[in-house]
């Protein structure tokens, strides 16, 4: 019987020829990561155990990106735990201020997340690396500590789901709209404990960054991982930067899926997820008259160069609505620099927005744009839970950079055509 690419990667890392859903297997991990929120607990666990060395100093990344640049004394202490540990144990990939970026955009850029890898990270959006053909999933701090020490972890082989997207996308419809639509269709637990394999002609023409936006949000449907086939788009991105050898896997034609969902997306409109769950998805045309106070373009979901470019191109020569604050945060230093060099930062600032240094910041209500009670934001991030970006009485509407930017100009949720 055939296997999916997720199953093949798991089997290969378990030293097996075949695995099937439901089995509990021990696997070798290729790479693991933690951030300034999660890694301190892992490190405390490792120190408490008295371990003097880690599994492999080149296969662990410590990425202080959530509350950096350190927003307060407690945050500075959390980052110091990472820094001190990295020095003492010789961790190669500790990213200091000035080199750090939002983890799930930074690590692919650094060539550390590769096709065929098993990657675990103490951050739920670790599923992003499925866009590069890896089996990649979020875990907690204690699981990360175990892998940092042993290079291993255990998994229950997940059931496999396949998503097929057909048709040419309308102008202004992006991969963000595809994933919001999908979550709207299957619900926030529609893929609970399962793999989501993203396929179909529509996705072939997506950039690697756009694919990463979809894989990033697999967790918002409850999935263990999201994954894309490896093709020329993947290899063009990965090959020049890969820091290790890698092997691509593909799904067999007779692989078994518990569910297959096929969507004709040729007529799809831009989507907006209403508070307080990502599954509350509506067409943007059904979101009329929602007045907003803030717009955030950034996060591991949509803080990539193409996202900043969409915002700059749309807002060029226009002004942010007088009642709205626009916050644009490129995910990494290299994106920041490119946006600066190409004049995107200037366009955004001239329009009345802010253009900030890389951080997860506002996405999780950390800093750099917290909402007061009763305020509403359109955000290109991935979660709109109660209190996600500030006061529990505030609201977050999830959308693409194009919808977010149009909304910033008009002061209400808007279709990009309305400002073009």
């Amino acid at each position, binding site marked *: 019987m055939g296997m999916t690419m997720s199953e093949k990667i798991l089997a290969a890392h378990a030293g097996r020829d075949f695995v099937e859903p439901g089995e509990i297997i021990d696997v070798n991990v290729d790479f693991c990561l933690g951030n300034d*929120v999660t890694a*301190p607990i892992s490190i405390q666990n490792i120190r408490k155990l008295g371990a003097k060395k880690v599994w492999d100093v080149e296969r662990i990344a410590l990425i202080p990106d959530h509350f950096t640049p350190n927003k307060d004394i407690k945050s500075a202490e959390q980052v110091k735990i990472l820094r001190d540990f990295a020095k003492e144990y010789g961790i190669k990939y500790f990213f200091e201020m000035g080199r750090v970026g939002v983890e799930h955009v930074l690590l692919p850029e650094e060539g550390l997340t590769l096709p065929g890898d098993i990657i675990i990270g*103490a*951050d739920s959006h670790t599923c992003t690396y499925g866009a590069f053909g890896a089996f990649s999933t979020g875990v907690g701090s204690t699981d990360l500590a175990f892998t940092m020490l042993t290079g291993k972890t255990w998994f229950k082989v997940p059931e496999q789901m396949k998503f097929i997207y057909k048709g040419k996308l309308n102008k202004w419809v992006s991969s963000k709209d595809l994933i919001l639509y999908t979550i709207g269709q299957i619900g*926030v637990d529609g893929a609970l404990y399962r793999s989501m394999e993203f396929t179909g002609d529509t996705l072939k023409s997506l950039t690697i960054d756009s694919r990463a936006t979809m894989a990033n949000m697999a967790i918002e449907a409850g999935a263990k991982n999201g994954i894309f086939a490896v093709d020329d788009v993947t290899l063009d991105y990965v090959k020049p930067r890969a820091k290790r050898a890698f092997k691509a896997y593909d799904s067999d034609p007779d692989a078994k899926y518990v569910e297959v969902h096929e969507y004709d997306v040729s007529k799809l409109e831009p989507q907006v997820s209403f508070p307080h769950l990502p599954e509350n998805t509506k067409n943007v045309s059904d979101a009329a008259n929602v007045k907003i106070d803030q717009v955030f373009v950034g996060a591991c979901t949509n803080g990539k160069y193409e996202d900043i470019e969409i915002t700059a191109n749309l807002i060029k020569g226009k002004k942010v609505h007088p009642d709205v604050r626009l916050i644009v945060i490129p995910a990494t230093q290299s994106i920041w620099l490119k946006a600066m060099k190409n004049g995107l930062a200037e366009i955004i600032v001239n329009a009345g927005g802010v253009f900030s240094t890389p951080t997860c910041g506002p996405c*999780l209500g950390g800093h750099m744009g917290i909402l007061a009670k009763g305020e509403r934001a359109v955000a290109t991030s991935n979660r709109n839970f109660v209190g996600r970006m500030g006061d*529990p009485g505030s609201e977050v509407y999830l959308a693409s950079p194009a919808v977010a930017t149009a909304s910033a100009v008009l002061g209400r949720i808007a279709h990009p055509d309305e400002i073009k």
Partner: protein
Amino acid sequence: MNYRGKSWKYGDNIDTDKIIPARYLNTSDPAELAKHCLEDEDVTFAGKVGKGDILIAGENFGSGSSREHAPIAIKECGVSVVIAKSFARIFFRNAINIALPVIEDETIVNDAETGDVIEIDFDRGFAKNITKNKEYKIHPLPDMMKKIMEMGGLMEYAKEFINL
């Protein structure tokens, strides 16, 4: 392992931002996290929950972030067992890893109301709602997870594998 406690019941999709909002994640001190447990769902919870109490919830409990601060806050504020119709997978794994007992059971949740006294006998595989006088058979955890729980969490379990 046996537990007996008063139950507190909440709804579906109690995400980790509700369990422990990110504004408190600049620390990993369990006592500090416990003070804010479930704050954005029920701001009074941390003040009223007692030692040994049982937390009951609907579908997809612990969805969202991988933050282990969520099960840590729940455990530290006194909760002995979490019973939900279903759990988000990272939360479920994190709970096992820090030896916070979790039970996935729709019937117990449907029957229970806040204030009911519930008794759980993991060894015999039974739960009882004393207030409603109803008994339930509970499914045992897979062997590996059971072993991690019994040893007091993943780091205790890890000692067998790690050359210190």
